[in-house]
């Protein structure tokens, strides 16, 4: 077995057990990056290798001395490029941030470093996390490691592709409307969007501040739990951060499905859902039922209002969040312009891509005087209703199960031509963001074409432990989900 096929926890165990050195782990993952990166393009920026090896040696020393004992010590990982890393370029996949090197570290990244994680680099993403394919990145698209003619999903496509391609043992992503769960589903990896407020947003470049959450992407549930244990926790620098007592205990969540009440919303299985995806998701539910869970269908309602409400709220916040990118202080400034307003206009026109401009315009419109009540306030009311509908559901169920995306990964270029259809692809994921719920996506099968399919589990706020328990129970039956074999595997499948 290749080193890069190991899970993060297994690698950590072997490093602590002196079976592997931190250097060896780093060498293996760098080799994988060198081999795959030109085709996959999971990263925007890679860390300097000399510095990485120096850090690997420092971590090794700390492990040897016994001052670094955590399960992720010495594990190389990647961070999505909307999470600020001190001294390392952070672009959000946008031209407008070109040249921006943060003078400070995001809390989540700082917590990883403290745990002895090696930060390999910054992963590709849809520009400002706006998109579902990682194709809106200024730096070009990331390819799906399972089929390079397909997208990895988005916006955390780089993070999910890096994990799937063995270019990182795990990665941090961010999820505003499904940006961890949908690409996890497309790439055959496991990802969780935690309860809003669980992971500090300090240093996460905001898209929709009331919906954004950082979360882990990894090979399996146990890895996700271990990473969440490290990055979760109250942060006085984020006023929306929540004090909760369970971070630190997720790794030890045992597999347990017995007695769990699982609800499947009828609304999630209707028109627009690919039959192959539907079958795989229902098979996963069945597997949980066989392990003692009670599975029941129910009607969630309001699902068709979730997409418009999500786009109104996220775009409204984005229109204001992205105002600071103006060419004055950092990042891109147009070469030629006249006067202050000319500088703003030229810099922003050239610095932002069309999807970002579309959402800034939409967001500015719904906040403008005369439309605020009709759109923004109405969307907030829908958000409150959706939250209520989930509160209601969680009186009867421990978990809600469904797909993470209507279909497996589309081909490159297929989605951008029809943004509305792309927006509708978020149908199963946005509700968790609107209601602030945790949602986990893990692989549950493949299509005939050999593309991964994910199943999504959602729980009530602060009930991540239930997600981890059920997901691990399912994994025990499912077995290790394979890594993609690229073209070779495809040929074998034929």
């Amino acid at each position, binding site marked *: 077995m290749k080193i890069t096929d190991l899970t993060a926890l297994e690698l950590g165990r072997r490093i602590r057990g002196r079976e592997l050195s931190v250097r060896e782990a780093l060498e293996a993952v760098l080799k994988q990056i060198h081999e795959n990166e030109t085709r996959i393009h999971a990263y925007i920026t890679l860390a300097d290798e000399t510095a990485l090896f120096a850090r690997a040696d420092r971590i090794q020393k700390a492990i040897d001395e016994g001052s670094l004992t955590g399960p992720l010590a010495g594990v190389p990982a990647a961070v999505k490029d*909307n*999470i*600020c890393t001190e001294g390392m370029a*952070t672009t*959000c996949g946008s031209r407008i*941030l070109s040249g*921006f090197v*943060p*003078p*400070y570290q*995001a809390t989540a990244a700082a917590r990883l470093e403290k745990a002895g994680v090696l930060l390999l680099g910054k992963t590709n993403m849809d520009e400002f996390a706006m998109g579902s394919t990682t194709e809106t990145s200024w730096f070009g698209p990331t390819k799906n490691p399972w089929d390079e003619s397909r997208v990895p999903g988005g916006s955390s496509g780089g993070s999910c592709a890096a994990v799937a391609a063995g270019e990182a043992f795990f990665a941090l992503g961010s999820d505003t409307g499904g940006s961890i769960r949908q690409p996890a589903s497309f790439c055959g990896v496991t990802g969780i969007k935690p309860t809003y407020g669980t992971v500090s*947003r*300090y*240093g*996460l*470049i*905001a898209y*929709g*501040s*009331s919906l954004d959450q950082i979360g882990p992407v990894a090979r399996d549930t146990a890895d996700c739990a271990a990473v969440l244990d490290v990055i979760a926790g109250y942060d*006085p*620098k*984020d*006023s*929306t951060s929540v004090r909760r007592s369970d971070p630190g205990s997720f790794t030890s969540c045992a597999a347990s499905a017995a007695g769990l009440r699982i609800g499947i919303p009828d609304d999630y299985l209707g028109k627009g859902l690919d039959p192959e995806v539907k079958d795989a998701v229902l098979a996963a539910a069945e597997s949980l039922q066989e392990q003692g869970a009670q599975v029941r269908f129910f009607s969630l309602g309001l699902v068709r209002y979730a997409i418009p409400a999500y786009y109104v709220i996220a775009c*409204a*916040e984005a*229109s*204001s969040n992205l*105002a*600071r*990118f*103006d060419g*004055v*202080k*950092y990042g891109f400034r147009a070469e030629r312009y006249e006067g*202050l307003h000319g500088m*703003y206009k030229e810099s922003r026109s050239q610095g932002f891509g069309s999807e970002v401009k579309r959402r800034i315009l939409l967001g*500015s419109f719904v*906040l*403008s*005087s005369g439309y*605020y009540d009709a759109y*923004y306030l109405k969307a907030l009311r829908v958000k409150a209703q959706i939250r209520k509908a989930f509160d209601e559901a969680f009186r009867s169920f421990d978990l809600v199960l469904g797909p993470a995306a209507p279909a497996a990964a589309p081909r490159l270029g297929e989605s951008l031509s029809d943004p509305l259809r792309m927006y509708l692809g978020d149908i199963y994921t946005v509700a968790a963001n609107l209601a602030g719920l945790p949602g986990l996506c893990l692989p549950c099968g493949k299509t005939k074409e050999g593309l991964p399919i994910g199943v999504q589990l959602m729980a009530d706020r602060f009930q991540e432990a239930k997600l981890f328990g059920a997901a691990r129970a399912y994994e025990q039956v499912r077995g290790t989900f394979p890594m993609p074999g690229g073209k070779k595997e495809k040929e074998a499948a034929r």
Partner: protein
Amino acid sequence: MRETEYETVIGLEVHVELATKSKIFCGCSTAFGAAPNTQVCPVCAGLPGALPVLNRRVVELAMAVGLAAHCHIGRVCRFDRKNYFYPDNPQNYQISQLYLPICRNGSLSIDTPAGEKQIRIHEIHMEEDAGKLIHDEWSDCSLVDYNRSGVPLIEIVSEPDLRNAEEVIAYLERLRLLIRYLGASDCRLQEGSMRADVNLSVREAGSRSLGTRTEMKNLNSFKAIAHAIEGERRRQIERLREGKSVVQETRRWDDNKEASFSMRSKEDAKDYRYFPDPDLPPVFIDEEWISRVRARLPEFQPEKQKRYQEQYGLSAEDSRILTESRRLAELFEETARLSGLPQKAANWLTGETGRLLKERGREADSLSFSPEHLAALIGLLESGRINRNTARLAFARMFDDDTDPLAYVTEHGLLTERDDSALEEAVRAALEENPGPAAQYREGKTKAFGFLMGQVMRKMDKKADPGHVRRLLEEML
């Protein structure tokens, strides 16, 4: 034909910089005068990913001002983003309060020639200040200093209850005194820690409806405010008399030209696209928090002035002067207690103190001498150990650097002669040397007494206590 009479209607928006140690949403210092961009961090420089964290001290100061102005304090208040592009504003939005401001429905009373008048306060809200733009004409570029970015402000919005410049200034003075009493701000118009925008309209006398208003900005002194109000009133009336209408617009006052100029009209008024800031959860203010802030409120000027008249028997004028600064009032009360002579303390703190403040160009809030020293000085003078001239000298030293008056007069040999035999000798000598004036006095010409006093004082090298000399001289005559 009789010309129509017009009434002026004025409402004020007053911005006050709060005197907190750190900024409203980060830990950076608010100290004035540091080198550009040395008091900045990722938050107040608007770096991507940085998040605001509310300074609770700002909430308490805003609450204190609200309580002092008889406002209702909202149980929930919230911050909203005001979106507009300008380089002094690093995020291109200002965090302010629109939908749920912290204070509402207050009032302040002012004195007018017609008696006391209530000016209603619509609301008080919290917000962050912007940075400062510096236009470098030499190299034709603009520079920005974010040291002021994120300094806490409150905006106090009055109802249109003011009718002329005198009322406006009385209101501003009342507000300034109140805020200074709270220690919430030094409220200096020139330095920008207090800024007033004047909303003004005119209407036919007796009319109940409001005319179209203009907003006047850049008013840096009470004088500018008075001139701007007079000028704008006249401009609007002239337009109406010419049959033109007043355009709703923002105007900028130019102090050098003594005139205002249109900045922008309603048509190109900005749409600020206000919405609740998702980075800041609502602030919940419970009864207990309000009580704690209320309990710490000082006694304010009007009550203090009244009490001084009743408790110390001071004149209305002395009481007014003493209470115009909380520092001065505290000095007075402490000195009165230590010396047991409130009127004497009041005399020093109104007369000599006022004169020196004016001479030195200082404000009463900056007084730094201790009440112990002033009480000691009063004691020295009243017991006759120093004379009035010496007391003035010692006071001036104490005023400047809190020099102990006793140490000062001792060191300079200015204590009056207490040796009665020497004094008696001097009186006897003066009488013997000037038999003429002594005789005149005995014949009832009191004028001669002054001459004899002078003679004695000269002999005593001016170190005698005049009261003592007077008694002795009268006795021996």
